[in-house]
């Protein structure tokens, strides 16, 4: 019986001009967005790979010089684009694309692509994720609101129920029919997406679990909207009331909630200004953390300790290069300061994000948004992971160079020069996409919120079916 109702619902939809027109528009937008997203993903990704190799070459091709001069010359890293970013570019346009690694400094990522664009981007970009998160739910609302309410208004609901059809069967059949008709819209885009992902190079293989999880997430999300729309349609006084209720739910979810959540989190947990942040770091390095232990004091103590350790009277008599040790010591002090301040900043960001994710329990769009960005590798946690990886790499390079100066430059002081074999011996920077398990773990909140909403909407629809009124 359910299948028969579903088939009737499907046929009805397919014959409906409004369905065909809106389905065509959405399908075209979805395919277009996927294609455009993939093209720009490919360009950027190729460029970053090329630039990364070139930057490394620059570092390796330095002439003979003091290792510390090489540390000052530094190295550029470019944020790699993970394969699924073409579906959901997430925060990528609003984070820097490159970071400069050098001695003494922890630099922020620079060059936000969003600054090189017009204000139009603030309306929201046309991406596959945006179509799935915003437009598809609206299409579901518009197609589903009359499904039960209109039958009641036309009196056909009474007829159907008088035939002995169980309300549960009727509702399930409608849900199935609508789901299939909506699924048809997504099929071509999903096929193209899968094809493009196969084309995306060697890394893509590792992202299949992510892609699958993403598809499941969207399926659940859109399912929630379908079930809720049917529930409202079953309960509403009229189809007009059903439409207004659902539109309001959609607007609050997709338009108001994200901005409201953002503003509230910024209001309650303000982000420090760049000026305050960097001034505090400079101050702590110069005067010591909390004003204890200023830099020159630290240097004097280090010198004394070394002279005692090696039992000599002058720095020149040390069997190691004092500059190398002093540089590394100041580096480590700086690292402690950077860690302290960056960790505080990121704790702030995490709290802001947690507040937003918490609201995901109230509004499913917030939850899918987080999950989708997480799986695409374009969320804050992966941005953080990249900048931490870059910082770790910086510390390795600077430490290796200082160590070389310390050991090999013993009696030459700053006159010591190292050659390309040292530059070439630096480890390569590699950033790996996190495993699916850890992504899902980090997005546990969003997953739970979606499951909660799915369970809730099933339960609500169930109840509405049981108490279905014919008039």
């Amino acid at each position, binding site marked *: 019986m359910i299948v028969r109702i579903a088939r009737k619902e499907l046929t009805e939809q397919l014959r409906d001009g409004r369905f065909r027109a*809106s389905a065509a528009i959405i399908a075209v*937008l979805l395919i277009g967005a996927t294609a455009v997203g993939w093209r720009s993903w490919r360009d*950027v990704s190729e460029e*970053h790979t090329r*630039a990364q190799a070139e*930057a490394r070459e*620059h570092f390796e091709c330095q002439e003979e010089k003091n290792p510390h001069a090489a540390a000052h010359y530094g190295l*550029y890293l*470019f944020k790699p684009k993970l394969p699924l970013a073409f579906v959901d570019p997430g*925060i990528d346009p*609003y*984070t820097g*694309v*490159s970071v400069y690694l050098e001695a003494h400094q922890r630099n922020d990522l*620079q*060059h*936000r*692509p*969003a*600054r*090189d*664009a*017009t*204000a*139009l981007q*603030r*309306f*929201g*970009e*046309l991406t596959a994720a*945006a179509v799935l998160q915003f*437009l598809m739910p*609206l299409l579901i609302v*518009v197609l589903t*609101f*009359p499904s039960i309410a209109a039958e009641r208004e036309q009196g056909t609901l009474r007829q159907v129920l008088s035939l002995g059809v169980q309300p549960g069967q009727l509702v399930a059949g409608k849900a199935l029919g609508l789901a299939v008709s909506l699924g048809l819209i997504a099929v071509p885009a999903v096929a193209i997406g899968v094809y493009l992902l196969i084309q995306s190079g060697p890394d893509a293989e590792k992202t299949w679990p992510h892609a699958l999880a993403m598809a499941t997430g969207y399926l659940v999300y859109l399912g929630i909207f379908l079930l809720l729309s049917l529930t409202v349609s079953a309960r509403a006084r009229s189809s*007009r009331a059903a*439409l*207004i209720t659902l*539109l309001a739910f959609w607007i609050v979810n997709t338009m*108001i909630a994200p*901005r*409201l*959540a*953002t*503003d509230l*989190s910024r*209001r309650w947990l*303000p*982000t420090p*200004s*760049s*000026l305050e*942040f960097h*001034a505090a770091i400079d101050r702590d390095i110069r005067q010591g953390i909390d004003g204890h232990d200023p830099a020159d004091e630290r240097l004097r103590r280090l010198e004394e300790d070394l002279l005692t350790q090696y039992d000599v009277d002058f720095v020149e008599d040390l069997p190691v290069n004092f500059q190398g040790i002093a540089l590394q010591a100041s580096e480590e002090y700086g690292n402690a300061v950077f860690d302290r301040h960056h960790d505080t900043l990121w704790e702030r*960001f995490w709290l*802001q994000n947690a507040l*937003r994710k918490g609201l995901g329990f109230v509004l499913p769009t917030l939850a899918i948004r987080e999950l989708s960005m997480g799986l695409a590798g374009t*969320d*804050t946690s992966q941005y953080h992971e990249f900048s931490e990886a870059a910082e770790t790499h910086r510390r390795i390079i600077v430490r290796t160079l200082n160590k070389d100066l310390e050991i090999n430059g013993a009696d030459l002081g700053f006159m010591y020069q190292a050659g390309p074999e040292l530059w070439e011996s630096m480890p390569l920077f590699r950033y790996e996409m996190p495993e699916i398990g850890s992504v899902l773990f980090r997005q546990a909140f969003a997953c739970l919120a979606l499951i909660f909403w799915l369970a809730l909407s099933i339960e609500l629809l169930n109840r509405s079916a049981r108490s279905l009124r014919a008039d």
Partner: protein
Amino acid sequence: MVLRIAQHEARLLIADRTLIAVSLVLVAIVAYGVANGASWVAFQQSTRDGIAAEEQERYRQLRERLGSPGSGTGVPADQVGTSLGARYAALPSGPLAAFVIGQSDLYPSYVKVSTEGRQSFAAADEIENPVHLLTGRFDLGFVIITLYPLIILALSYNLLSNEKEQGTLVLLLSQPLRLRTLVAGKVLTRAIAVVGLAIVVSIGSIALSGQDAAEGDFTSRLALWLAIVVSYGAFWFALAVAINALGRSSATNAVALAGTWLLLVAVVPALVNVLVRATYPVPSRVELVQAIRNASNEAQTEGTRLKARYFEDHPELVGAEADYSEFAIQSLATQNAIERSIAETLDHFENQLRRQQTLVDRLRFLSPAIAAFEALQDAAGTGSARYRHFMSQVESFHAQWRAYFHPLILRAQPIQADELERIPTFTYEEEPISQVTERVTIGLIGLVIPAAALAAISVPLLRRFTVVS
């Protein structure tokens, strides 16, 4: 007659509670939007106070150092020009900045100007959670562009269809009353309620937020702002009337209007954005990073030769004393060479962006939402035009800065205490209001023409309107 209709309509709407509910929502979101904008302006103000204090402190230390008896030789000019004496060029928040945050969360409101190249301007970004930038803020601009049309549509999607469905339209029109007059009366009531409230609450909130009304072009900008809000509202009312005039059911009207709203507020801007980017692609900054790196590598290997050539170009700058600072001169020459070789790339960025903006200016007529969005940002002074205006002043200040310091550096002439007062300072010149008005007026045309066209279409449609279905 129109007024009498409006009176009755108001009574009906109040009795229905819809108007009250919708008005409360409107008041709440407008006030919240302005409060949000005001807190952003306060944040920017405190940042600017912070940089001013930082600069003052640096100068105080410099003065102290130069005033101390041991510093007869002064401080090397290159140190003052690059770091110790670097000055901030700050962009004050516009008089109406609390209304629209616009692009101001993306562009830093100040630039540190030193003898370093202008590529360093791009480096200063305000720290922000990237998700916040991606999402955008809940400011009055967002309320006006996105939610205000929805409120208008929520009140008028069933302007006629409801009366028809209830059967009251026949009764009404059996009176000596023309359908046109009825519609005008209904629209008038709603317009006064929605547009009036939006305006009163925004002005009230900005007054409460402690903005100085006497400041600058406050009144002219406010007038522009009001004109945009009224015309944008008029467009959406006209759209609702036109859809109603087609004589469909309330539910169909609601779907059609929601669809049009989504199309104009979200889909068309996103498509225009794609088109603009495809037509004038901005090169990637990755390329620029690489170009700078290549140029500086080259310059460093050619160091001495560059310096020699630099002096050939500027014979007047060679100091009489031989012991000028080798390092400072070398780095100036290198910087010069780097800048020459990346100038083209940098210009390419700016030109492409300018072309993109020109195209957006043309294509904004495709959607009143784009036209209104740009106009609101212009009126509030948080759009890209004012930022570009600021950046061009920064560039000339930068040139002035270098013109002051380069000769000193090359002549190895240190800075003395009395010279600190002569170091250039930056003052922002506000964009002439006539220019702002001109831009906003073009945007207004993009609102008024579609509204008038819709009204013109509605008149014959209403004449043929069938009262009984």
